[in-house]
């Protein structure tokens, strides 16, 4: 960006012919020395400031006189053609944009002064009150379990009952649901079956109100974020109004769901980031540290609600990288300051969020200390430490004839499983899988080899030792664990593992050698002889093929019920924990029940284990090609509102909720994103052609807000495109926020902050916009507040034929 050299205006219209030539023309210096301070005010007889500014280098000045003014960059035409570094040097030392610096006001001496100093806080107060009304209005109208309340209500109940459960989302949001239940006096006894009516003892209205409070807070946060972003007043109003009036955000905030918390923490993260940005000229001040730390904590919270929070983390990451890149290029900054800057980011934006995330898991484990439905996802040792688990009473030492279950020790591993269904490919024999759900299909009986005498229940006990060759018989179907040189269904380079034969039919391919790795409690394998349940780590080597029983994280297709594939790995890698197994449950009438004191499973190990399990299960939520899921939608259905979502049953007597946004907000914001990209391209094109359209500060502001909005949107949208899992429209709700910011930013850029429009025009544009939003909100409000009676009475709400509002 060039300095504004236009200030050279001698007050004569350029096209007017000179009337006299009796003085010598002296060329003005072409670079006004900046050290002389402000360029002097020059008379602006007939040009507005706006016009003057835009007259800079609009056209290449004709003639050699003009040429002299614009020295050609010597590196511009050399052999390289392009100067890679010249562009970098142009950039300013620090990111511009944001709210202009203001001096703190003097202490107010009168009420009037106090009010005038705090004028900017009055609109958000009103917006918040409105927001309370929209969010809480008739919140208990539907007295049944709506949509995913079935999940999150149930998880909340588990906290109250302190029973361990498993879910793909991190625990913070669900703990807050549990807290809401606790505060409203709910005892955790309700099952939250989908569509079921709430019994009297469940204070669902109070719980919904508490959760909706997070949704209420979105509105003031949006206001203050817009203020901190340095938007004009009208744009700030626009942002707050859009957040207030979107029926999608409204609808999702009114139930016992995690989305309102996710949205809340997403909003706080952006807010804190903009706050921090505005402290950039006061590094290491108290406020600077505070907002940076808050940003980090907020990142931790949003990620602990749903992993979607990683997307807003990416936004902060990109901002920080750019910021540090500028600092890195600031040669005047001392090394000490450099290091402090880098260290502060690492401490506040990396370490703090991780700590927050881990703390939520620590609390999660502390609360859920009873055995519950999610046990099987965790390691055997973790389960043994839960109250109500009977592993401790299992016999300790495994012998031939014992009935056992085998747990894979890989991160997120399950229990060795078989069921009567057969492989549709390969050998067509009975399937072997790895599965987390506990049932008797996980039970195996340890038996001697085929060439040894059959197991005699009355003979002397033979304890299992390292190197023993055994058969494993599947207890319910009486078939034997078997492997053969047929490629496994997914991991084709490994051998398939199946269940084959019966009590009398079998062959040497049923023989497995038990190889002890070590024992968690007793140490290396030289130190003990007998195999203990829970703690001894084993590998099973196929005697005939020499391969190892392994449960990879490959998920079988629908015919295998999305369970984990088990195969026999030809490579012998003793370090591969996916080939490690331990005995979990153990039943043997001839052995005394154990009474072992287990050493506690370390927190970090459990934390990591649970996270891998969450990740695996999340990725396993892939759409089923054989099933048509009417609720699911693809990312491209969202920005232009191709599909909505029915949140509950659709019968006439039910209160019905339809998740779809206010069309102006959704479609308008999407269009604004396209416009922003085109506009940026246009300006860059003009810049490359060396036209100056904006002052540096203006340009920085345009870029700064645009980057926050665009990258925020992009990071919240693009991952869904590559993600294999099934997606729903509510995944777009955090994304929408950034589109809304862009919408306001574009309006701000074109109209509200533009100097070419009169105040009256701006007011009209603003008024029409607000009116349309209000009207649309009024028109669609029942979709979020609940439709009573037959939906056909709301005939004209179905603006797009693809919405399944009526049929």
């Amino acid at each position, binding site marked *: 960006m060039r300095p504004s050299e236009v200030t050279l205006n001698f007050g004569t219209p350029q096209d007017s012919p000179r009337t006299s030539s009796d003085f010598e023309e002296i060329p003005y210096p072409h670079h006004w020395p900046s050290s002389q301070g402000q360029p002097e005010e020059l008379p602006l007889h007939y040009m507005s400031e706006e016009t003057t500014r835009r007259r800079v280098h609009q056209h*290449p000045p*004709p*003639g*050699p006189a*003009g*040429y002299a003014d*614009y*020295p*050609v*960059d*010597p*590196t*511009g*035409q*050399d*052999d*390289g*053609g*392009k100067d*890679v*570094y010249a562009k*970098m040097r142009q950039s300013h030392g620090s990111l511009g944009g944001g709210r202009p610096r203001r001096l703190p006001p003097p202490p107010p001496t009168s009420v009037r002064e106090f009010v005038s100093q705090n004028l900017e806080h009055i609109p958000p107060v009103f917006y918040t009150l409105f927001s309370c009304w929209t969010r809480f209005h008739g919140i208990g109208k539907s007295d049944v379990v709506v949509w995913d309340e079935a999940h999150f209500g149930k998880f909340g109940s588990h906290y109250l009952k302190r029973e361990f459960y498993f879910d793909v989302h991190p625990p913070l949001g669900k703990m807050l649901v549990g807290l809401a239940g606790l505060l409203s006096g709910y005892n955790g006894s309700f099952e939250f079956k989908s569509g079921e009516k709430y019994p009297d003892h469940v204070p669902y209205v109070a719980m919904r109100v508490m959760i909706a409070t997070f949704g209420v807070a979105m509105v003031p946060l949006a206001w203050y974020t817009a203020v901190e972003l340095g938007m004009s007043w009208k744009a700030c109003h626009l942002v707050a109004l859009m957040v207030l009036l979107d029926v999608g955000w409204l609808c999702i905030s009114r139930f016992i769901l995690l989305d309102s918390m996710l949205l809340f923490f997403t909003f706080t993260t952006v807010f804190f980031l903009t706050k921090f940005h505005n402290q950039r000229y006061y590094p290491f001040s108290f406020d600077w540290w505070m907002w940076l730390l808050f940003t980090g904590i907020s990142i931790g919270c949003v990620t602990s609600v749903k992993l979607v929070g990683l997307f807003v983390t990416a936004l902060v990451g990109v901002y920080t990288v750019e910021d540090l*890149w500028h600092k*890195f*290029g600031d*040669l005047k900054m001392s090394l000490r300051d450099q290091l402090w800057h880098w260290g502060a980011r690492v401490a506040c934006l990396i370490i703090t969020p991780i700590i927050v995330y881990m703390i939520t898991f620590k609390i999660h484990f502390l609360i859920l200390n009873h055995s519950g439905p999610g046990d099987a996802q965790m390691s055997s040792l973790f389960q043994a430490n839960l109250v109500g688990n009977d592993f401790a009473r299992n016999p300790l030492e495994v012998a031939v004839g014992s009935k056992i279950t085998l747990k894979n020790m890989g991160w997120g591993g399950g229990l060795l499983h078989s069921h009567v269904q057969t492989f549709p490919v390969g050998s067509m024999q009975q399937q072997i899988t790895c599965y987390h759900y506990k049932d008797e299909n996980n039970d195996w009986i340890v038996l001697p080899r085929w060439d040894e005498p059959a197991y005699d229940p009355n003979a002397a006990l033979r304890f299992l030792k390292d190197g023993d060759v055994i058969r494993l018989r599947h207890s319910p179907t009486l078939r034997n664990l078997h492997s053969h040189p047929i*490629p496994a269904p*997914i991991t*084709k*380079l490994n051998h398939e593992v199946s269940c084959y034969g019966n009590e009398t039919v079998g062959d040497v391919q049923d023989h497995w050698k038990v190889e002890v790795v070590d024992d968690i409690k007793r140490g290396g394998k030289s130190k003990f002889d007998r195999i203990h349940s829970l703690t001894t780590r084993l590998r099973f080597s196929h005697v005939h*093929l*020499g*391969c190892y029983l392994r449960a990879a994280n490959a998920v079988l297709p629908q015919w295998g019920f999305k369970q984990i594939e088990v195969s026999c790995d*030809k*490579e*012998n890698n003793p370090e591969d924990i996916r080939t490690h197994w331990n005995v979990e449950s153990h039943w043997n009438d001839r052995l005394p029940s154990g009474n072992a004191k287990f050493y506690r499973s370390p927190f970090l190990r459990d934390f990591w284990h649970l996270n891998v399990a969450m990740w695996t299960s999340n990725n396993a939520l892939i759409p089923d090609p*054989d099933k*048509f899921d*009417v609720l699911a939608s693809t990312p491209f259905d969202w920005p232009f509102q191709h599909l909505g979502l029915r949140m509950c049953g659709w019968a006439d007597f039910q209160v019905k909720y339809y998740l779809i946004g206010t069309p102006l907000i959704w479609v308008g914001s999407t269009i604004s994103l396209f416009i922003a990209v085109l506009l940026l391209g246009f300006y860059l*094109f003009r810049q*490359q*052609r*060396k036209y100056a359209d904006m002052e540096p500060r203006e340009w920085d502001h345009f870029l700064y807000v645009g980057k926050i909005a665009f990258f925020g949107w992009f990071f919240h949208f693009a991952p869904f495109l*590559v993600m294999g899992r099934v997606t729903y429209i509510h995944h777009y709700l955090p994304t929408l926020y950034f589109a809304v910011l862009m919408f306001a930013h574009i309006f701000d850029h074109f109209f509200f902050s533009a100097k070419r429009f009169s105040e009256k025009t701006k007011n009209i544009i603003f008024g029409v916009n607000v009116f349309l939003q209000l009207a649309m909100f009024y028109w669609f409000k029942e979709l979020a507040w609940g439709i009573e009676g037959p939906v056909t009475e709301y005939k004209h709400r179905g603006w797009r034929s*693809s919405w*399944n509002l009526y049929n």
Partner: protein
Amino acid sequence: MSSPAGPSRIGGLGPRHRKPPTVEPRVPTEDYDEEHERLTTNFNHPRNRSAIEQYMEAPHAKQITVVVLTVLAFIVRFAKLNHPDQVVFDEVHFGKFAAYYLRREYYFDVHPPFAKLLLALAGWFVGFEGDFDFLNIGDSYSANNVPYWGMRALPAILGSLTVPVVYYIMQECGYSTIIAAFSAIIILFDNAHVTQSRLILLDAILIFFMSLTIYSYVKFRKYRYHEFTFDWWAWMLATGVFMACTWSSKVNGILTVVAVGIAVMVDLWDLLDWRKSDNERITKHFLARVVGFIVVPLIFYLFFFWIHFAILTHSGTGDGFMSPAFQETLIGNELLMNSHEIRYFDTITIKHVNTKNLLHSHPQRYPRDYPDKRVSSQGQQVTGYPHEDENNNWIVVPTKALPETGRGRIVRHNDIIQLLHVQTDSFLMTHDVASPGYTTHQEFTTLPKDQMHRYNETLFHLHLIDGYEGQVLTTKANHFKLQHAVTTVYMMLPGHELPDWAFNQQEVNGHRQPEPEGSEIWVGDAIVAGEHLDELDERLGNQKDRKPKSMNFFSKFIQLQDLMFAHNAGLTASHPYASSPSSWPFAKKGISFWTQNEGHKQIYMVGNLVGWWTAAGAVFLIFGIFPASIFAERRNIPVLTESVTHRLWNSCGFFVVVWVVHYAPFFLFSRQLFLHHYLPAHLASALIAGAVLNFICTETINYPISYRGLDTPPKPREYADLGVKGPVFVGVFTLLQFSLFIFMAPLTYGTPGLDGDEVNRHRLRKSWTLHFASKEMADL
């Protein structure tokens, strides 16, 4: 050569009128002089270079180098070209396609035709008549008298010529002979490139044209101070033409187009600065690029397809992929021979186009309750059934008055019809009841003939695809949709299998917006009975005399493009030798091309580890060098001379773009991927390796290399000097590369056979899955 400073530049504003370049002032420091000395005096006199460099840079030394490289390339690619005399790997496809050209039978493939046309040409040249089907890997050529070596010779020739082209790319970019030879040797003795070049496959052809594209682009770029001269135009058009050949050889050739496109855009972006070009000049440049890089390649691309259609005039294996209108242009196709017009009261069978199921109904009824607690109408089942059956017969019933005889009885586009199920004497209908498998779709059932009060629900609107008013419905030749007159849903078959109660037949249901695409398209399969069936043959005149219809080339072309795109995306089945892109640069996994039990012979396509790891290492280094250079500049630390910086970013940067563009997109493709998809990127990495080696060995470079324009300001010349370490390194590298090449030769050439232990020794990486390995492997 016209002077660029023509009248187009107003008032001499152009770049030519400017001050001579000035050295950017640096902050004087203690080390300044020394530093400045080092950065500015780079062998400005060629005699200052080391003896070996002077010798290697002499013209005759360069010529000898190229000749030696080329001869070696031909030797290693042509050696034992006739072994094995069996069909190997994808020769199954590409040999077959070449045969189809010679037989002029229409086929369908996901790849554009150019490379296959060349293969067919080679086959024709050596007298192959297309009378061999290339059915299975391992089929014998010699037993069937196929002159296969002639067809293999074509990829071998082009594959050999790739080596000198790589050499010249580096040479033109200003690298020394040694460096250029180094890049060429990485390709020359590479087992993967050699394997791929010796067989009837497309990749060698693709890679040859890709390298030519890069070469021409480099040449074009070097002429940039001679804009709009003959040479400038010639090299631009050459780039465009070779680009079109690359793209027309294989679908992934499009990546080359993208790579060049990026370079062109960067180039244009630089010209945008008004100090360099006024409006007229930038417009001229832009339009020239449009012609050279868009219009010309497109014309060539179209031209190859035009030849493709012009040759393939007979019906063949590809018919079924195409639309009926297309099929009717082929001589001897079934539509032409067996298509009949349908008249009212004919009994016909109706086939679902995508799944080949016939519309079927039987007396069994839908069960009242479904597992998800919905209920059905308990009407008669309507399903899709792939086998012939009496229950597939439907009579087309008119809804309007018909004349006794004649043309008025023909079923036409936009008619409203009823379909009467012959066996149960009931009409096809649909109504507002959810179908068994989908809550959103309507159930299809039938209505007994006597229930006239629901007559309206049995009416269907007949829409011929691309139909015109009054068009006749014929069997096989016209695809159509059936839209229910009352509820406006289309009859469709989404591909959902019904449970046992419907004998696992396919569900037929209705929806307004059918998905997947095309699931609502049906075709009349055959007329099984009719009032005047005896005159069937006369209805449309004598079948035997029917001439193939003609069709606009562009409609054919667009149809084929759509299909190619759809099928390419559909290649997702897993394959034991498929590999993921991340495993490619280090040759983690190869492909077993061919095995022969007798003699334990096999061909295993995998890269030469020395060359691949060197190239991959160079790529890693460059991704370290670029950031390091940016960081250094950011801190204003002078590290590189200007000339070296420019070479690093402009020349090597272009190679990196080529590499990234030919590699990264594969991470996004969900289709089956194989190691040979990396070969174009590997070529780019060989170029990068040369540039990196030069960067490591010396701070000198031949500079400037672009042809100086009439008024380009003179630049001080610089000369590269690798000293002794360059040649020594390249010598040692060549030795290693060649030794490993020879060691791997039994896997590349498929002979001699290896016994179990030898196979184990050749298994250089644990992840290679060679055949005939001895047993103890698993216990290692």
